[in-house]
């Protein structure tokens, strides 16, 4: 009994540290990947000076951000101002708890894991709204208002797509969803055309929603630097901005993790070799790279086209997707 208790404590500590390290590592090294990637997309070098190939650049960045003064503008609602970055980052970290990195590697194996992810993921919009509002800056206010409209618009198709997947899998348990996709890439949900011929389209739509939900270019209304200076982050400096930045990348990682679990078979091997966490990470980082790739390929969409895309295209198609899935389930 006592031994079990100690083991459980050790397990919890291990996972807390592990997840925090994972989040911190990803946030810093995805920034590096973004900088390096964007540089290579644009025929430049990117950071090269700190460490070999600039590999220690994230450390330098972190030190710089930590050393910077945190400016608090006049008329700012200080409590909300500082609460906002934490409110954005924390839910994203919390969601990591349920992600199954491998058959046995998951902090908690919930039955309602998927539900929890989306419940917490919806929080980040509060953070940005509060941050933008508390900043007492017109650009930040405009950006905050945009972000709320954008997140509401994209929450709906995301959930509709996920519902269709859940109808196929019949469970909210992420570990189980992965387990069902064993046996090769044709068993992955993205290619289960026998269950629903629209599945690849659903994945694509999920990916678009992922970009919009994480406020990534071409849907980066929250920053929109050529329109709103730095949007909701305009007044944030030093590490407060750093936390927003971390949150952005953590959200991307989370979104990609969920996409991997739901559509790409999680830690399963595509062609019957040894499954394991390496497959999960490979798929997840491939998705992250695609997110970066998309960002450096396109201009930003207009705000109303962004909403049009959601309300006029994504939502109707995802509804059709649900109906089709239901029909297929009923018929076959």
């Amino acid at each position, binding site marked *: 009994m006592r031994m079990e208790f100690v083991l459980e404590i050790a397990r919890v500590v291990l996972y807390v540290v592990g997840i925090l390290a994972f989040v911190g590592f990803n946030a810093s090294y995805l920034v590096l990947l973004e900088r390096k*990637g964007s*540089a*290579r*997309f*644009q*025929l*430049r*070098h990117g950071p*090269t000076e700190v460490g070999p190939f600039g590999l220690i650049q994230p450390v330098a960045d972190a030190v710089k951000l930590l050393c910077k003064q945190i400016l608090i503008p006049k008329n700012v609602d200080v409590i909300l101002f500082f609460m906002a970055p934490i409110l954005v980052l924390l839910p994203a970290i919390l969601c990591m708890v349920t992600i199954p990195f491998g058959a046995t590697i998951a902090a908690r194996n919930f039955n309602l894991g998927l539900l929890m992810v989306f419940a917490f993921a919806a929080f980040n919009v509060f953070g940005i709204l509060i941050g933008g509002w508390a900043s007492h800056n017109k650009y930040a206010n405009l950006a905050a208002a945009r972000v709320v409209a954008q997140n509401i618009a994209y929450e709906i198709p995301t959930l509709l797509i996920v519902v269709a997947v859940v109808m196929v899998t019949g469970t909210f348990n992420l570990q189980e969803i992965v387990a069902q996709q064993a046996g090769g890439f044709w068993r992955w949900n993205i290619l289960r055309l026998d269950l629903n011929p629209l599945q690849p389209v659903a994945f694509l739509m999920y990916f678009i929603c992922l970009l919009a939900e994480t406020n990534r270019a071409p849907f980066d209304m929250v920053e929109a630097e050529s329109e709103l200076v730095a949007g909701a982050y305009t007044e944030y400096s030093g590490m407060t901005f750093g936390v927003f930045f971390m949150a952005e990348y953590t959200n991307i990682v989370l979104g990609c993790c969920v996409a991997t679990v739901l559509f790409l078979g999680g830690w399963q091997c595509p062609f019957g070799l040894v499954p394991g966490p390496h497959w999960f990470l490979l798929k997840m980082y491939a998705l992250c790279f695609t997110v970066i*790739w*998309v960002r*450096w*390929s*396109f201009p930003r969409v207009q705000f109303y086209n962004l909403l049009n895309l959601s309300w006029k*295209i994504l939502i109707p198609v995802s509804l059709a997707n649900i109906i089709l899935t239901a029909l297929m389930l009923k018929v076959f």
Partner: protein
Amino acid sequence: MRNTIQEIISGAYSLAVGMKITICNLFRPTVTLHYPHESATMPARFRGHVELACDPETGKPKCVVCMACQRACPSGCISLDGQKSESGKGKVLTAYSLDFSLCSLCGLCVESCKFDALRFSKQYNLAFTRREECTFNLLERAQVKK
């Protein structure tokens, strides 16, 4: 309805083409110079700040103190001084200072010089921490270079 579908498909295609272009560029060699490790070679006519050209035989500046450059300078950044040469013929340059903080690198001074005594240096990455450092003593520079 049909137009919308057509637009979605053609739009998605255009986005795919865009992504293809960027991914192709990912594997191309970079076009930028890796600055502190490599630096660009300046073309022969590059207009840097001016420097005095010396006679290859005597090693002395070719300048005859005709003041044409001082007159030609739109910003008034050139000041020079000379004294009668010992042989009694012509003048010898004793001081030539260029206030680089005023210089607009237009090159009118070099153009005005009939004796090829001025030329452009190839230095392009000049930086100073104090204003006084912007005033170059070109005579000294010419001697140091030699």
